[in-house]
């Protein structure tokens, strides 16, 4: 097996390594579609999707088939190239970030020493895609939505990056696989509870890491454009924001990218703070295959949290959004960085 793998040319190896996340994204999209609709329905005191299959489990497949069969409508006055390219740019930005996610101790797409840095950088590609979509749509509402979204995502990358810096300070590495191995050994070794450090340091670090994790999660929701930060696609204001002119499969690409982003943001938070693929029980239920299980379960829990928050809270206005990012989250994170640095040095 291993000789066969090593005999393949590197290009084929890379492509083979890139396929599992894609398959995972597509399967996961079906699951999260179903989950979102069902969770939304139960929060709203109704049931959804009872007809197709047992309690509607086949509905996402039906949705996918419907989107594939839809007529591809391209308005005549749009920018020919950018309109078509934009959904793929958005999806590429998210998909590329999956390369550095450690699904288990045995599998990681690309074991970069700068994993974290790469993550933050490549997910900025999404902003470019959204701006493209907003501009190319030749629609004032789409333009407004695209510009707002770009401003929002750029602003919230600062708290994300700063929170990642805190985690990097505690674990001492930017390599995501290293970060996860650092937290191996049980729930108390997780960075959110202070990391595998002496008790005194842990207790001092605890408030900072909890706050940082919370801010990372909030900034993550803002990065994904979900309520309460979903002004760019605020259905009740901008019709659909930068998505307005898209229909059929292109629209599906945007939504695929959004759901993939949901997972990405949860996965990053889980890897950096909650131990990634390591089991919370230490030795029990750990190993390469269990690693995938734990990783997916932890990330899906936060995906569920994001869906829960979406259907509970109203949305923030653009200037309030910006205010929160620049004047609330960033100063708190600076304080956390100072605090963590201080605790680690003494």
């Amino acid at each position: 097996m291993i000789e066969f793998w090593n005999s393949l040319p590197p290009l084929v190896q890379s492509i083979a390594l890139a396929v599992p996340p894609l398959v995972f994204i597509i399967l996961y999209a079906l699951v999260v579609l179903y989950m979102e609709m069902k969770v939304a329905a139960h929060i709203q005191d109704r049931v959804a999707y009872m007809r197709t299959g047992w309690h509607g489990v086949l509905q996402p497949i039906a949705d996918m088939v419907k989107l594939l069969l839809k007529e591809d409508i391209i308005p005549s006055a749009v920018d020919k190239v950018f309109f078509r390219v934009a959904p793929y740019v958005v999806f590429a930005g998210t998909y590329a970030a999956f390369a550095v996610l450690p699904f288990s101790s045995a599998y990681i797409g690309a074991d970069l020493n700068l994993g974290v840095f790469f993550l933050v950088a490549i997910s900025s590609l999404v902003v470019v895609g959204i701006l493209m979509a907003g501009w190319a749509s030749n629609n004032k509402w789409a333009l407004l939505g695209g510009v707002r979204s770009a401003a929002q995502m750029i602003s919230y990358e600062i708290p994300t990056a700063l929170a990642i810096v805190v985690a990097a300070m505690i674990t001492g590495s930017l390599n995501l696989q290293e970060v996860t191995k650092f937290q191996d050994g049980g729930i108390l070794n997780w960075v959110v509870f202070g990391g595998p450090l002496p008790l005194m340091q842990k207790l001092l670090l605890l408030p900072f890491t909890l706050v940082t994790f919370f801010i990372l999660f909030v900034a993550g929701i803002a990065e994904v454009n979900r309520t309460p930060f979903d002004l760019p696609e605020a259905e009740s204001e901008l019709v659909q924001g930068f998505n307005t002119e898209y229909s059929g499969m292109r629209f599906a690409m945007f939504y695929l990218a959004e759901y993939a982003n949901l997972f990405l943001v949860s996965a990053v938070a889980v890897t950096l703070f909650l131990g990634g693929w390591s089991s919370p029980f230490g030795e029990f239920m750990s190993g390469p295959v269990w690693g995938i299980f734990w990783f997916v379960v932890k990330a899906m829990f936060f995906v569920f949290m994001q869906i829960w928050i979406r259907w509970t809270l109203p949305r923030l206005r653009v200037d309030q959004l910006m205010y929160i990012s620049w004047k609330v989250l960033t100063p708190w994170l600076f304080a956390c960085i100072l605090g963590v640095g201080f605790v680690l040095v003494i």
Partner: protein
Amino acid sequence: MIEAKTLPTNYVTKPGAIKSSSGKTLRTEEMIVNMGPQHPSTHGVLRLEIIIDGEIINDVIPHIGYLHRCFEKHAEHMTNYQQVIPYADRMDYCSAITNEWAFALAAERMLKIEVPERVEYIRVIMAELQRIASHLIAVGTYGIDAGAFTPFLYCFIDREKILDLFEMTCGARLLYNYVWIGGLSHDLPPKFVEQTKEFCTYFRPRIKMINDLLTYNEIFVKRTANVGVLPKDVAINYAASGPMLRGSGINWDLRRDDPYSVYDKLEWEPQIGKGEVGAVGDCWDRHIVRMREMEQSLNIIEQALAKLPEGNVQAALPKRIRPDKDAEVYVRTETPRGELGFYVVSDGTASPFRVKARGPAFVNLSVLPEISRGAMLADLVLIAGSVDIVLGEVDR
């Protein structure tokens, strides 16, 4: 002589020469954005022409008339005053009983009919149930405008129970044709009183639940406080009524200040906005006025149910409705949206000579440009939502 303006030619390519529909020339940094007749959050077919400078609104020009159904012309051609009642229903379709009641009151005043007391109490109960149902729509859709999708579903669950009560009584869920001139079309069915009492006990804690979920939510408060402030003098000058007027701190409720029916025999308080989270007269004040009015309506219903006398609901129905020549009357009632007025003029025949419907949503909407200048685009949706318009009433 002032000529009526023809269709505006908006998009002239010379810079600075773009004109809005009201004739104002735009500056080059301004942009006209259209919140068109079809839009998820304009609560109906309303077109708002917005002149924005970045994100700040410089002017809003509402265009209405997409739902104009010629109610007043129809009313002049009816062969009977009773036939106008179903048309009046369909004006404000979210609150149909109050429309019918206003018109029936006008006809009854012109004919000088006294309706039996049972009829008065039933009308009050129905109108207050209708008030709760209408406010539930207003509150639910206001949550959607703000991005909170869940309170809408909760409000509609409660509204279904009210619509069940209506269906039990007159067979219709939304447009009833129930309040007739001189009485009602049907008496209350046997189980109505106990089911309504059950509803009242069921609904009271739900108001608190919606308040916890939406009204006092930090994000909602930040979105609606100090937004769309309607000062007192502007409110009176623009003849705002209902929660728009009371939200600005003016203690004026037609049920108490221009009383009709048996409201003066029941104990309840008009709710006024006090500026609890921001300026007096902002969107949050109007919202909380509606929430508190629902509670007051429950009080009224419970008292009216307790005092409900026996009697025949069709005793005073006149055979021929023929008011005197030159009889004319303007009657105003307090609907969930404000003051609904009917100015009915008779010429001695069986059809009305002129019926003018003064819709509260029509008048409240005219104040929208005044309160949204200087607001942000995202606020406009919330301001328009807080006016609580129903296009059927705006356009008639």
